[in-house]
């Protein structure tokens, strides 16, 4: 288990990538029943070989987990460290990425029915809650007090919806000099225990489902972002230290839905299918400006809402783990390749974590 140690010990700041291979199952529509062909092999705890033709390709990540990994060890590898950092004042983000049916929700939440807070199969999110509050309780003994609030939003079709207030209209992203990017008007619930946090999560998750039937959209087409904001207060030597940090847990839309963003390749945008407005001309021009020679220029097209909201986690100032879920079936070769490639690109994004310490000289 030498490799695992490397992942745990080093405090390298780049985004870390964890690849998880789900087991083959019958009748998911992703495997043709009977065709049990696999398109990949896990060759070591941090490499995966994809049986591509003519040459097989090997990808290397911080960690590769095969089908038999337990939920608990996924949590230990991915989230433990990040939750600890959050307590110490860093921002942290965990993404789940992959094709629909590759096990994102299982990894993050666990089996789909919701009264299983004690279930062995529970996912990264409930385990993170438990660990977070375990640490909070421990730290609270040392004259440190914590305040924890949660928000839960969904991004669908570039619109932001509040999952904790299903009646609200779409919300806006704003930026503040002190608290960075935030969703204006999103409901924030104070929580004092893991069970309460989990309650907030499941309430929001249910809203996500409701929305998916009433507005006729699939849940896998939307991104869900659960944010915990943690504020700690410590009084030492007549000085009050306040630290805030955020833990973002993100369930991304199925990667196959994200064709329009980057993986599209050379396909031409048709005028007829985009209602005669030549929207994509802008994309072409943007590409021209993009390759420019380091001159100062302004591009009018904004980032997507998701990248803007999580800008901080992608190459900003936070600790980030991406869990790339893949399905091993040979039918999923194309999607798996694109997921593995995405995960490899993500490795290139550098991250730098830094403590935010607001030292107030109030003498009590």
């Amino acid at each position, binding site marked *: 288990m030498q490799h695992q140690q490397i992942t745990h010990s080093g405090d390298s700041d780049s985004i870390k990538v964890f690849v998880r291979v789900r087991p083959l199952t019958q009748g998911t529509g992703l495997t043709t029943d009977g065709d049990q062909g696999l398109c990949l092999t896990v060759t070591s705890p941090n490499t995966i070989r994809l049986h591509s033709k003519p040459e097989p390709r090997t990808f290397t990540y911080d960690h590769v987990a095969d089908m038999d990994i337990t939920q608990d060890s996924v949590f230990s590898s991915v989230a433990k460290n990040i939750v600890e950092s959050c307590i110490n004042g860093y921002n942290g983000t965990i993404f789940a990425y992959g094709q629909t049916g590759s096990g994102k929700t299982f990894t993050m939440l666990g089996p789909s029915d919701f009264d299983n807070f004690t279930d062995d199969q529970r996912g990264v999110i409930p385990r993170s809650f438990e660990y977070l509050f375990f640490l909070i309780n421990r730290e609270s003994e040392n004259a440190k007090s914590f305040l924890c609030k949660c928000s839960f939003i969904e991004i669908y079709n570039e619109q932001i919806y509040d999952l904790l207030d299903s009646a609200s209209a779409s919300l806006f992203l704003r930026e503040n000099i002190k608290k960075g990017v935030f969703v204006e008007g999103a409901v924030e619930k104070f929580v004092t225990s893991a069970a309460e946090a989990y309650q907030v999560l499941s309430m929001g998750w249910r809203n996500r489902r409701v929305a998916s039937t009433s507005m006729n959209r699939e849940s896998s087409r939307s991104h869900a972002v659960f944010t915990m904001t943690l504020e700690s207060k410590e009084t030492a030597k007549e000085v009050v230290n306040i630290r805030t940090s955020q833990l973002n847990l993100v369930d991304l839309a199925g990667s196959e839905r994200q064709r329009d963003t980057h993986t599209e*390749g050379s396909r031409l945008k048709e005028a007829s299918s985009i209602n*005669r407005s030549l929207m994509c001309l*802008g994309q072409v021009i943007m*590409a021209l400006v993009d*390759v420019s020679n380091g001159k100062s220029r302004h591009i*009018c*097209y904004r980032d997507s809402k998701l990248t803007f909201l999580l800008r901080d986690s992608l190459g900003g100032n936070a600790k980030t783990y991406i869990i790339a879920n893949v399905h091993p079936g040979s039918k999923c070769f194309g999607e798996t390749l694109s997921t593995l490639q995405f995960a490899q690109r993500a490795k290139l994004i550098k991250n730098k974590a830094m403590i935010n310490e607001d030292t107030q000289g109030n003498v009590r």
Partner: protein
Amino acid sequence: MASPHSHEWRAVCDKFNTAQNLSEVESRKDPENDPFRSKYKARELLREIYCTLKNFDVGENESVNDEADQRPTEQPVDGGMEEGFGRGHCGDSPAGSRAAKLGAVEYYLGVNHVETEELSAGEEHLMNCMTLLEKCCISPENVSLFIQVRNQLGILWAGRDEIEKAQGFLETAEAMYIRYMKEDGQPPMDLTEFFVAEEEALPQQERTKRFEMAYTHTLYYLAQVYKNLEQYEKAGGYCHSTLQRQLKFNQFIPLEWAINAATLSQYYITKTLYMEGRHCLSAASVIADLAGEVPSEASAQESEAEAEKRDQLRQKRAEIARCWIKYCLNLLQDAKKLLEDNIGELDMDRQAELRATRLQEEEEKERGRKSAVLFGSSDTFDSICGLEEKVSCVFPVDFEEARCIFLVGQTYVNQAKEYFEMDGHVTDHIEILQDHSALFKALAFFEEDLERRCKMHKRRVDMMEPICKDLNAQYYLLVCRQLQFELAETYYEMMDLKLAVANKQNDLDAHTVKKFNHLCSSSTKFYQMFLDSVRSPEGKWPEKLEDEVLRPALVAKFRVARLHSRLISSSKTVQLENLNRALECYNFVVQYCKDNPEAKSAVETELELSEEMVSLLPLKINRIQANLASCN
């Protein structure tokens, strides 16, 4: 051929109409679990039409029937430009007309199959259409079909990642349009008109509009093809032509068009084509105004639609203003690059040179301009030209000219800030401030009076320092670092200027010394802040600097060293202290490069100077120490 009034022909026309309606209107309402229901129905009708047409009497005993049935030995493929242009039947001969009609049905079948994700079948139909057309020459009846079938094949092949093949079809379409407009040019028939009764033919104006639209699409697809082929210059040209044609034929959404044009201006700026960039921006500003008045705040509060419109209009206009800022900024910076000597000061000889060549260049540009594609319909052309006149597109050579450009830039800075307020748009707001600061910096280069130049830098400090203090580094690390570094550099520059002014005077008064030292320590403070941001949260300096901070961090150390050695003090003890600190920093740079040889190339000059100082400074320190000892 069935007579145009026959019962049979009417039935065909009706069928075609129904198919069109199914495909374009009904299909949008198809349920998600049966998404192509209407398309499949339309397909059936088209097939029926095809059979009926085939069975129609050819008349005049021409043997077209057999000919049309023969499978071609090889499929026509576009690529060679003029190859495969129509030959054979005249467009309006009965045989030609029949072939064109069959071709049109094949075309619609092809599009139908492509839309229902049956690409190979779609390709086959489209190729059949090409084959049928091969037998016709280009005429007003079928030229539109010639072009549109190629557009579709272009899209099809690009979707299969065979860009060169797509390029071939599209380039042929382009060439056909050009040739047709040169040789014939009368408003051609639209594809739908193959299947309408004569009395329902489209008016000439509508025909022109549809035909030109098809060609605009050809250019639009070519822009995408060239982008995918990484032929950026060509892609840029096609984007420009597409925009120009949208405007000319009044087929655009103002805000969208304006944003596209503004973005295109940024492409021209990076190519130092300022005349073209200015033209795009002027057009963008004028067309954005066509999108209507910005709703008032009051009306925005009353209705959500108004609120959204208000936000959209304000945002897009602010975006265009930001493109203008970049225009002014780059023009000033490029001029500065042309005019500066090896120590970064205004080179008088070059200034004279540039002035001399200016006249000549202007004439050339004017000539070039006549051949360039200009934006504007008759309504907007004058306003676009009017806006262009407000700012120069040639490099400024002296302060007066630079100031004019600076002022235009500053106006746009204020305009952009109205929407991108600090509260709500932190990143954008700061980017605008950084540009404003850069505008001042570029302008200062042209200022000959050092005191006034110094004041310009003070303005930069005033706009950045308060933000740098307030900004949360947990969320804006990169921006914080940029601001810290820029502030440090600005103070450094001011310190240099003060020194230059002081050197002209004979003696240094206490006030000047105080001011000078203040600038030195302010600069040091911000370099130090930047350097601290590189440390780990526990305050540890990293063994290895990350790539993106490698050079700035070493430069900062180097500058801090110089700043320490420059501080003026009459006390020997303080002098000694400062020199020791300076030595420490120089040593750091030298030692770091020794430990990490790959860093050397990033800081060549700084390293060389640091090494020199590491060998010289100890002598100076020893001398002062000896001096101090002897005094005691």
